[in-house]
């Protein structure tokens, strides 16, 4: 199946996100809206994968791990729009007996999910483990991970960062969703991350930066990371984003990190997002 990342897909994914969290009056719309372009870019342009025949092992495929599992709505929407499972299943998000758990999980066997996430800080280690297995298998494939910027406050991230550089895990491209917000406020107020570029550089990673809402720029940084294949240096992309992107009253504030819109707010949000592929 040949696919292409487009703004139209992004618009539909944003509609899916706000509708999903509204339907159950819970979930995390802010961060989800901010990572739409990245996930659409990865799944529709970049990743070699077989959506119709998902396997846990994913041999000879590119893999993606969502370390900040609370932005599951964007992942579920992109996976379904890419053909991993029927889009109508998005209506079951966070409901009893659903495969679409509040945070991603494997027990319910949702195609596309290879490990549970939600408790933060573990996904970089998981990605490095999977990348190591791919190296042992001699694969020429890539492992992608996504992290919140607030998530970088977890110490395990830096254990993993040290390991990857020391062991030359260069088949990984990790993204940080730099929206500057976390539940209790801005990252600067809660626990400052200071100069993330300098931090990752000091840990031995190649630091790339881009606008996380620009599909072309995302493609450019991914291409640059891939161009260094075999360099022995792991890649981190500091992706500048806006929490709540695409819905004006949700943009740029931590207030929509973990709450859902009411009926009027949903109508307002949907009026700003064109229905391009048909609502689920």
């Amino acid at each position: 199946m040949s696919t292409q990342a487009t703004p139209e897909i992004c618009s539909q994914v944003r509609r899916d996100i706000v509708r999903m969290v509204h339907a159950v009056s819970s979930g995390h719309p802010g961060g989800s809206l901010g990572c739409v372009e990245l996930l659409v870019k990865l799944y529709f342009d970049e990743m070699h994968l077989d959506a119709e025949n998902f396997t846990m092992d994913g041999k000879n495929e590119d893999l993606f791990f969502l370390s900040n599992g609370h932005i599951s709505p964007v992942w579920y929407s992109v996976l379904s729009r890419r053909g991993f499972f029927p889009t109508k299943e998005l209506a079951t998000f966070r409901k009893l007996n659903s495969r679409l758990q509040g945070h991603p999980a494997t027990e319910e066997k949702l195609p596309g999910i290879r490990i549970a996430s939600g408790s933060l800080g573990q996904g970089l280690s998981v990605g490095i483990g999977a990348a190591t297995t791919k190296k042992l298998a001699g694969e020429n494939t890539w492992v992608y991970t996504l992290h919140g910027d607030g998530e970088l406050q977890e110490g395990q991230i830096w254990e993993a960062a040290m390991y990857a550089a020391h062991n030359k895990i260069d088949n990984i491209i990790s993204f940080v969703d730099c929206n500057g917000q976390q539940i209790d406020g801005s990252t600067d107020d809660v626990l400052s991350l200071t100069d993330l570029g300098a931090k990752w550089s000091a840990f031995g990673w190649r630091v790339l930066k881009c606008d996380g809402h620009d599909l072309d720029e995302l493609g450019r940084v991914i291409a640059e990371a891939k161009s260094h294949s075999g360099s022995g240096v792991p890649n981190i992309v500091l992706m500048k984003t806006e929490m709540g992107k695409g819905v004006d009253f949700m943009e740029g504030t931590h207030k929509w990190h973990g709450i859902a819109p009411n009926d009027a707010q949903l109508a307002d949000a949907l009026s700003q997002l064109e229905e391009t592929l048909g609502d689920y």
Partner: protein
Amino acid sequence: MTDSSNFISFNPTESKDTRSGFGAALLELGTTHPEVVALCADLTGSLKMGDFRDAHPNRFFQVGIAEANMISMAAGMTIGGKIPFTGTFANFSTGRVYDQIRQSVAYSEKNVKICASHAGLTLGEDGATHQILEDIGMMKMLPNMTVICPADYEQTRQATLAIADYEGPVYLRFGRPKLPVFYKTDAPFEIGKAQKLMSGDDVTIVATGYMVWEAIKAAQILKEKGINADVINMHTIKPLDAKAILDSAARTGKVVTAEEHQRLGGLGSSVAQVLAENNPTPMRMVAVDDSFGESGTPTQLMDKYGLNADAIVSKTLELF
């Protein structure tokens, strides 16, 4: 059950540490199981993983003093079919990384083998910071987790081989001290299948790990007092062999458990649960009574905290 003299010796001539049984088996798996990989958090010598590292350097991963990264990495390595064995002390294999195990291994049903040495008081002089006595409880509470605590060098070797062929998360607990190697090399080992080592109709002694040999010694002392004990090696604490417990308890009407672990949440509490729900039976537990350990030699500590054959005998006599 079978005649145990076929597979154990009551007069063992050799003493070895259980961790060396793990190391020997890991080396064997290196040859027989190409998908087995090993990760270690800066304790390669203590875990006896050096032979595997030297024989298979490309399948050995030194992660440094970063246990959380090790556990989550191991979970990631299963994606693509590897069978990771992680190695560090029991304390750092469980309490320090409980959330990583819970989310990335147990909940995610990953085929990770968490191999833990230096469990319990027999770690000795390092003291309470390293003498974990809560690990069985923590690990058995996790859905999808199998918990194994073998009795001697040979059984640890066999258990290590067995878990490589079992699909799913496993916690394998062993230790530092040398103790008699009473299992024979061709002894049977089946995950979840308890072994009766001695037979008697008066009391059931259910022991695990280091305390199994102590239970045999206790049963021999009790025999001189005219009390004949069923001695059961409960090497797998989860899934628990409830049938072995209930069959024996139905005959003896008295049960004593023995473990190098806290009373709360260990083997004893699992056995009590089975009995309470099926056949309430008078019981005593030989275990650490809600306290931390301290520095000392293993023997001194096991004496002070009441974890030896004499303690099993006196707890048993309370039931008569």
